């Protein structure tokens, strides 16, 4: 370990790091702008200047030279000065020059109070603007409904373009113009294309890029009440910090988890949680009356009605992969194991259970995100990852750079030398092979993009597996055969191969063969990783809870003769074909629905109970890598809303169920579930229980500067009520307590003295960029499994298109394919109505063009046509999860007719486009 001297004090440093990150890890304050722990150094801003001395005499006589901390490797015996007048003076003058053109905006800037520029300005001690010249100004751009642009505030640190282009692979944000005219924006106004654009809000150290929803309903960071939470947008389970004020969810920020999401979220996660504020949220329990409308009742009455209906009756329960393990577990106990459906539709049921089974049985490891980023050869079978598990796609964009890091290592170039490493590698990437039903959003970094029908993707997978394990493959179609050699050669040569597949293409064989490829690699002694994606935040948890033998929705409808059907947070009309749902609902006399938002299923119920959203309740979710993670209420639910587990526990107690007798707290349910469900035995390890205290006190949800406590509710009453008491967790709804050194699962916000922005995170990490001090959040439930012996598998049958029939393949969109995020402000503007994607030659044959309507199977659905030539021949894509597509099943063969009387939609107008044109000067 090199020893260096800083201002006369000797420190032992880790080799291979730069001085800036080493100083921050030591807790020393060294200002910076352009360096980012996930993106390395370029030395652009000159803010991290220190003085370096060559010899002791130089230090005594003060003859040193100014170097940039972020570009200086720590070498044994080096002597630096951080606090010397020259270093300090230099750093102050850098901020002074950055401030020459800075607008007088802090009071009306959404970054204020968590602005890295403010922090650094105070840190270097710059106060007065001496320069009397005019300030440069810029016009802003409209960048879509999610991100606000205020270019005057830019300090040209280049973090945004380095993140957007280099890190996230975006193409539509760039540094324009030159010298002091430099401008960061698009070539013309328009919605930012990248699915990860939202991270600009946190990456930009100033208020240039801010969260537009927040800007329009703004609250300062110090006024936000927040709690550790988990994104419910997809199964990746990114860790988040949602912030609340006045009962409204204001924004979502990233919560660092070294193994799940690192520093970044996708835009579905960041902007898709606003449905919590939706007007369609249910306020109070409702009892259907004679006329079919709902009478509001209070929770006592509602519970009595529910208990009366359930007592002595044959009750079936439908759980939900978007509800917590605990709520589902209680429902399962309430209705009995045999009558509990995890709430999957038939295909999902099969696929999710298979995904779980394959991972449990595979000798390959299910990687966390750091391992994914270390992969050197990747094969994706059937997934458009950017739209189905977005954060993983961002990780893959880093994995393909391993080639660059290898080349750098050969030249003994540090990996944090970002510009140098990129220059060295140019566009050389580690191999990524994608076989999918159409083009994917990772196509630009893939070595080969292969478009095939799902059956043929499976055949490709099987051939690769056979080739790796040396079995002779059978004769393959030329479109497949041409790729097998390249893929298997690359995989065999890989040090850390990664195979990715999942449920999204709707084909079990595809997943199966992906697991076979991974197994074949393991057999040949390679350290292999296997990731299988599943659809929703708790899909895997549901499979673990209910198992493959539990009834799917279709099975329940077929068996069903129930008196009562209890449906937990599951809009069946969104999930399964309409006739099946009608049949299912008709099996029971009484339908009781617990959900947060009004939807078609709640409208079919006789009793509706308003459930708290993810932001108002605790719960455990199991992510696609089998990580159990706990989320906590950010604020107490309003009025008669209750967490689903509270409703179900109260009902179980009302019914006098013995299984519920010993359950009092949320933790009791978690423990009970862990004790009774073998696969979920680890969930108690997801987070400490409610007895945990941090150095004897609770952990505050509010920052210590939280304002307005004696006025917030004064319009209702001047008698200030006690803050709500949280008896279910170690967190408190107050500003009292200690937010330091606690376990990672309990980190509600980051703040440190002098560091108001999210850059304060390094004070919570064991070292800069490393895991949180209190340990990484979550508990892995999947270990590497033991493969069952199996000979070479039969090759799956090839896809043979029938004349006049097309095979349906689901296509996903980050905005629109997920049900709840699509109801969020901003995101809703970017969601489209359902559509189908069809090849131009097929469209020509059907005499339709872009924007026309197509009838599927004589009335199964009527959808708008989009031309997409990348769709595999013989297939048509449909926008999964979008309106009008619930009746469609992946893999189904359907006929198409031009829809008569179809009205073309007008060109889509986006609400927030209204006044913003170049030159109008509005923002």
């Amino acid at each position, binding site marked *: 370990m090199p020893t260096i001297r800083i201002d006369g004090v000797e420190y032992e440093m880790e080799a291979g790091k730069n001085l800036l990150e080493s100083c921050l890890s030591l807790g020393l304050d060294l200002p910076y702008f352009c360096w980012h722990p996930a993106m390395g150094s370029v030395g652009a801003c000159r803010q991290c200047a220190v003085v370096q001395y060559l010899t002791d005499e130089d230090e005594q006589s003060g003859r040193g030279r100014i170097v940039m901390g972020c570009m200086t490797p720590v070498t044994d015996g080096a002597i630096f000065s951080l606090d010397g007048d020259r270093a300090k003076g230099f750093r102050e003058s850098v901020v002074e020059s950055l401030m020459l053109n800075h607008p007088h905006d*802090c009071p009306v800037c959404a970054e204020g109070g968590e602005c890295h520029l403010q922090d650094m300005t105070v840190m270097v001690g710059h106060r007065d603007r001496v320069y009397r010249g005019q300030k440069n100004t810029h016009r802003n751009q409209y960048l879509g409904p999610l991100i606000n642009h205020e270019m005057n*505030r830019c300090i040209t640190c280049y973090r945004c373009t380095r993140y957007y282009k280099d890190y996230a692979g975006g193409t539509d944000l760039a540094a324009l113009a030159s010298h002091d005219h430099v401008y960061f924006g698009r070539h013309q106004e328009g919605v930012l294309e990248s699915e990860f654009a939202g991270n600009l809000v946190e990456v930009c150290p100033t208020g240039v890029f801010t969260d537009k929803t927040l800007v329009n309903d703004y609250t300062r960071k110090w006024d936000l009440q927040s709690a550790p939470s988990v994104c419910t947008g997809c199964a990746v389970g990114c860790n988040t910090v949602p912030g609340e004020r006045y009962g409204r969810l204001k924004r979502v920020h990233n919560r660092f988890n070294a193994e799940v999401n690192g520093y970044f979220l996708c835009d579905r996660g960041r902007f898709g949680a606003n449905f919590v504020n939706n007007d369609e949220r249910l306020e109070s329990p409702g009892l259907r009356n004679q006329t079919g409308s709902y009478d509001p009742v209070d929770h006592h009455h509602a519970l009595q009605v529910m208990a009366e209906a359930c007592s002595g009756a044959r009750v079936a329960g439908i759980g939900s992969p978007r509800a917590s393990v605990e709520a589902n577990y209680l429902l399962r106990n309430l209705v009995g194991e045999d009558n509990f459906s995890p709430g999957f539709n038939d295909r999902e049921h099969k696929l999710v259970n298979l995904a779980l089974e394959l991972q449990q049985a595979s000798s390959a490891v299910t990687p966390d995100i750091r391992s994914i980023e270390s992969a050197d050869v990747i094969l994706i079978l059937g997934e458009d990852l950017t739209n189905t598990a977005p954060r993983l796609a961002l990780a893959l964009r880093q994995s393909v750079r391993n080639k660059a890091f290898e080349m750098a290592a050969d030249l003994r170039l540090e990996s944090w030398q970002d510009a140098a490493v990129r220059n060295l590698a140019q566009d050389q990437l580690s191999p990524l092979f994608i076989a999918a039903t159409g083009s994917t959003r990772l196509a630009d970094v893939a070595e080969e993009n292969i478009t095939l029908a799902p059956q043929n993707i499976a055949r490709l997978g099987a051939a690769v597996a056979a080739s790796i394990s040396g079995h002779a493959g059978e004769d393959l179609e030329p479109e497949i055969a041409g790729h097998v050699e390249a893929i298997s050669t690359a995989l065999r040569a890989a040090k850390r191969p990664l195979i990715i597949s999942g449920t999204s293409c709707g084909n079990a064989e595809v997943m199966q063969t992906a697991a076979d490829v991974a197994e074949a690699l393991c057999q040949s002694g390679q350290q292999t990783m296997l990731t299988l994606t599943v659809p929703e935040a708790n899909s895997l948890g549901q499979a673990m809870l209910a198992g493959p033998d539990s009834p799917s929705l279709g099975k329940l409808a077929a068996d069903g003769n129930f008196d009562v059907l209890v449906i937990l947070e599951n809009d069946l009309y969104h999930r399964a074909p309409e006739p099946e749902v009608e049949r299912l609902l008709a099996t029971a006399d009484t339908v009781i629905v617990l959900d947060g938002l009004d939807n078609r299923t709640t409208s079919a119920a006789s009793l509706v109970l308003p459930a708290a959203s993810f932001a108002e309740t605790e719960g455990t979710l199991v992510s696609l890598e089998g990580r159990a993670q706990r989320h906590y209420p950010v604020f107490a639910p309003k009025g008669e809303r209750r967490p689903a587990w509270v409703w179900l526990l109260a009902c179980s107690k009302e019914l006098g169920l013995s299984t519920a007798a010993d359950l009092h707290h949320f933790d009791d349910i978690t423990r009970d579930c862990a004790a009774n469900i073998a696969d979920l035995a680890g969930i108690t390890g997801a987070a400490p229980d409610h007895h945990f205290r941090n150095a004897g006190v609770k952990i505050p949800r509010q920052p210590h500067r939280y304002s307005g406590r004696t006025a917030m509710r004064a319009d209702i009453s001047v008698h200030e009520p006690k803050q709500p008491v949280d008896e279910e967790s170690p967190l408190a709804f107050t500003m009292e307590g200690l937010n330091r050194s606690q376990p990672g699962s309990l980190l509600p916000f980051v703040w440190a003295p002098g560091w108001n922005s999210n850059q304060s995170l390094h004070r919570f990490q064991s070292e800069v960029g490393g895991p949180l001090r209190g340990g990484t959040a979550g508990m892995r439930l999947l270990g590497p499994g033991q493969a069952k012996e199996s000979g070479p598998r039969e090759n799956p049958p090839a896809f043979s298109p029938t004349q006049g029939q097309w095979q349906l393949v689901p296509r996903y969109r980050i905005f629109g394919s997920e049900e709840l995020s699509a109801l969020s402000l901003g995101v809703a503007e970017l969601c489209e109505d359902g559509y189908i994607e069809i090849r131009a030659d097929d469209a020509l044959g059907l005499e339709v063009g872009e924007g026309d309507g197509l009838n599927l199977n004589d009335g199964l659905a009527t959808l708008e046509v989009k031309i997409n030539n990348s769709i595999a021949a013989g297939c048509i894509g449909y926008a999964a999860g979008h309106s009008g597509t619930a009746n469609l099943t992946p893999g189904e063969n359907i006929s198409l007719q031009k829809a008569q009387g179809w009205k073309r939609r007008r060109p889509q107008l986006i609400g927030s486009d209204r006044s913003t044109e170049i030159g109008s000067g509005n923002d």
Partner: protein
Amino acid sequence: MFKALMSQVRTIWTILQHSFTRAETVQYPEQKPYLAPRYRGRIVLTKDPDGEERCVACNLCAVACPVDCIALQQGVKEDGRWYPEFFRINFSRCIMCGMCEEACPTNAIQLTPDFEMCEYNRSSMVYEKEHLQIEGTGKYHDYNFYRVAGLAITGKDKGQAENEATPIDVKSLLP
């Protein structure tokens, strides 16, 4: 001993002298004392010289308030200005310390020489924006935040604030 005695005598002499000076105490409420404009009494929200709401809902007063008796919510007007959708001061908590006025970057919030705020009902001490907002500029007559700030609003485009150059044309090749 002698020193202590003298001190006593001097004190008594001083007190005696006061018997002949003008009384500071006034017969309030019949007689009103003079209160300087900077006296710290009832709080108002002022308008800028152009008659627009000065408060930009920056929340600095609220966070500066030691008793946390200010609560507000920001909103954005059609013309691009930030403004408080609601602004509430709970005067039954306010200690008239003036920290909010110190913190305010726009001179919007000001304390006035009115201290007569007795109420029988504590809830009448809760002032909403309509009770706080006055028409004038208060003590500071000239300041208009938006003339200085870089944020563009209707009627003040980019480059039109004080000390601002005209917006840069990104597409120009001129130096």
